[in-house]
């Protein structure tokens, strides 16, 4: 059995950031990433980030990924990286089983940071398995990572920031975005993103959703309907839209499967995306020395995931006896950065959600 001080599961923004501050404190770590490369969902985010400079505002997501990866690579003696490696099991004695190209191994960790992120939610409607129906994240990966267009005429379902940004990127790639559908009565994402689409003539239809996909071997049309305040379809308001790709962007849900395996105390909090772990102020779960950072403990922006990663890396290192020389100052600064990111009306849901999971 391999023994490690700290194992970080997930090499996205929060996992990379945690490895960095742990290393700065003198603690070694192993990052385990399922994908072939590090960076998580940042690798497809070609848009510039908001926030303040400390969270790399005005920098494109793909470039933030490069910064975070370079930071981690600059500690070759302290940070070990395994890509293309899946964590297949997590056990209460902090044993992690992994699979890398059919090689199965066991690792025992003193502490674990679970930074597995979130996955896309899907919608239940008629013929929702027809080829041509994608998640918005999948479209972004196809388009921005692999240079493949999902279709020519696209409708986006969901007007949160991901739906709005991906719609804009589809337009930039020369795809005809026919409209954006939003089940709620108001647009979900930031006004700046919505305005960009509107200026380019894309209609955002609120209180509207898809009820049926129509086609043969692949998608040809969708039927939409208006919704009442209780989210019921209003008969007689159906419309048909011709298209060859439908993009579903109805939110993300935290990937807490590993937490559930070791019986971490969890709670369903809809404003955080679904089932999330109860955590202490130090991001520790109900199982001692098992910590979380990033979307797995509540879906937010990548900026918050990065800051949570820095914070958790410092805390875990301190707990294992590697206190950063500037510990108190850094912790205070990172906490105030998180407060800033969660301030204002857009952060209200997150703020309330996080109160519910504090232990």
């Amino acid at each position, binding site marked *: 059995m391999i023994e490690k001080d700290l194992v970080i599961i997930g090499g996205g923004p929060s996992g990379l950031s945690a490895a960095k501050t742990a290393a700065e404190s003198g603690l070694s770590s192993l990052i385990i990433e399922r994908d072939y490369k590090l960076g998580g969902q940042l690798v497809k985010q070609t848009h510039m980030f908001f926030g303040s400079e400390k969270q790399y505002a005005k920098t494109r997501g793909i470039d933030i990924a490069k910064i975070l990866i370079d930071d981690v690579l600059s500690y070759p003696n302290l940070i070990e990286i395994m890509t293309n490696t899946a964590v297949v099991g997590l056990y209460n004695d902090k044993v992690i089983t992994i699979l890398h190209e059919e090689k199965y191994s066991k690792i025992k960790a003193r502490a674990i940071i679970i930074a597995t992120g979130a*996955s896309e939610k899907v919608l239940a409607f*008629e013929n929702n398995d027809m080829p041509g129906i994608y998640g918005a994240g999948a479209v972004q990966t196809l388009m921005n990572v692999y240079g493949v267009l999902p279709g020519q005429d696209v409708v986006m379902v969901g007007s949160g920031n991901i739906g709005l940004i991906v719609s804009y990127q589809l337009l930039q790639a020369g795809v005809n975005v026919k409209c954006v559908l939003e089940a709620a009565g108001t647009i979900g994402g930031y006004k700046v993103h919505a305005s960009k689409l509107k200026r380019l003539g894309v209609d955002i239809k609120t209180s509207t959703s898809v009820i049926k996909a129509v086609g043969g071997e692949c998608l040809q049309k969708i039927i939409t309907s208006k919704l009442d305040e209780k989210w019921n379809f209003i008969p007689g308001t159906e419309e048909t839209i011709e298209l060859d790709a439908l993009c579903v962007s109805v939110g993300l849900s935290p990937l807490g499967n590993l937490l*559930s395996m070791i019986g971490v105390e969890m709670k369903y909090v809809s404003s955080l995306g679904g089932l999330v772990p109860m955590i202490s102020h130090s991001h520790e779960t109900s199982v001692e020395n098992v910590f979380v950072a990033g979307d797995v403990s509540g879906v937010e922006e990548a900026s918050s995931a990065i800051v949570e990663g820095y914070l958790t890396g410092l805390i875990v290192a301190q707990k294992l006896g590697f206190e950063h020389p500037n510990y108190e100052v850094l912790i205070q600064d990172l906490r105030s950065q998180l407060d800033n990111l969660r301030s204002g009306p857009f952060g209200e849901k997150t703020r309330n959600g996080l109160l519910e999971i504090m232990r």
Partner: protein
Amino acid sequence: MNEKNIIICRCEDVTLQDIYRLMNEGYTSFEELKRILRIGMGPCQGNTCGQLLQREIAKFLEVPLDQVKTQKVRPLTTGVKLKSIVEATKNER
């Protein structure tokens, strides 16, 4: 609406019709439905269907979403060949 064409679990090809049929027979917990339909037991291990099924159960029982328990997750998260496990444990006592 044709429930037969609404896929809830795409890994195991479980439709909304399958779920309604069993809920009407009295199987209204995630674990029961999982054992009968294999819902949530495919490659994505319930990451995709979990929330959809939770919503359908909540609607059926007329209870809030947070009162519907989702599936218990167990190792392993993906298929591992017995050969790989045997090789890893060869040198263990």
